[in-house]
């Protein structure tokens, strides 16, 4: 049991192994948030915090260096995007190439809602609208059926 707990702790610590001395709690928080949000270019589906690839180690050090230079979070992300491309963002920017990405979920929801309403309304209308002739025909059929029994 203790072993399992130990193992869980060890794996939760993940790859970010460097020991860092932060000047302040806010610096630590910003550093954490940035390396969570930035993606490792080498390993595709990991962020900088989770990857132990050499390039992720280098980029973590770079993020910290830029933080200490007094750059803002936005400037740090832009700095890396200028060198590694939009790929390093886990949260895509709002720009022409990503408009569809951002809008599509809402758009699909609106379309789905529209289709649903349309179907619902059509069903309701069909349920109510029986002409006089149709009604007479229906009565006859029902009468005939009752007569059979």
């Amino acid at each position, binding site marked *: 049991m203790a072993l399992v707990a130990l193992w869980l702790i060890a794996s939760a610590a993940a790859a970010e192994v460097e020991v860092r001395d932060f000047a302040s709690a806010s610096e630590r928080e910003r550093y954490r948030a940035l390396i969570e949000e930035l993606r490792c*270019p*080498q390993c*595709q589906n990991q962020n900088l915090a989770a990857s132990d690839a*050499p*390039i992720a180690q*280098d*980029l973590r050090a*770079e993020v910290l260096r830029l933080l200490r230079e007094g750059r803002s979070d936005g400037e740090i992300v832009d700095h890396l*995007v*200028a*060198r*590694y*491309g*939009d*790929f390093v963002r886990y949260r895509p920017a709002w720009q022409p190439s990503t408009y569809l990405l951002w809008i599509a979920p809402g758009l699909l929801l609106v379309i789905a809602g529209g289709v649903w309403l349309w179907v619902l309304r059509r069903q309701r209308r069909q349920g109510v609208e029986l002409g006089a002739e149709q009604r007479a025909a229906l009565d006859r059929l029902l009468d005939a059926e009752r007569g059979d029994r």
Partner: protein
Amino acid sequence: MDRLKLFVPLIIFLVLAVVLYFGLGRDPRELPSALVDRPLPSFSLPSLREGAAVDESALRGKVRLLNVWGTWCVACRDEHPFLIELADRGIPIVGLNYKDDPRAARAWLQRLGDPYELVVVDADGRYGLELGVYGAPETYVVDADGVIRYRHVGVVDPAVWREHIEPVYRNWTARP
């Protein structure tokens, strides 16, 4: 009209199939370089042979390949014989010895041959970060004005050279 509606699922399926089919053919590891059509970031780095500092102006004046390599990089060893072949054909190649031990790098070139016009040493990988290097080997085509025109991540072999790099190289060499 109702008949046509029967085909809606089929049409949706076909559209999805086509989109996904083209998605299959793409290599997710291939990142477009953010630096293509931008000038090579400036640097001042020691040369591997003489140790004297070299800057980015060393890459001006003609079209060159910039090859990022290290002795720790297994794929670079695979690539090496073909780089020598390219150098023999007269293609100027500049090496960026990336996060490596200069002594090991010199020994490697002595043993395996030296295809490079010039090798600059980026021992701590800082210049690699400027270039957006995320794995070696990487090969860039840098034009006569020092502007990056192409980037290839991975081994340059005859097929990659013929299909991707040579056309760009020839295109920029042909310009006055």
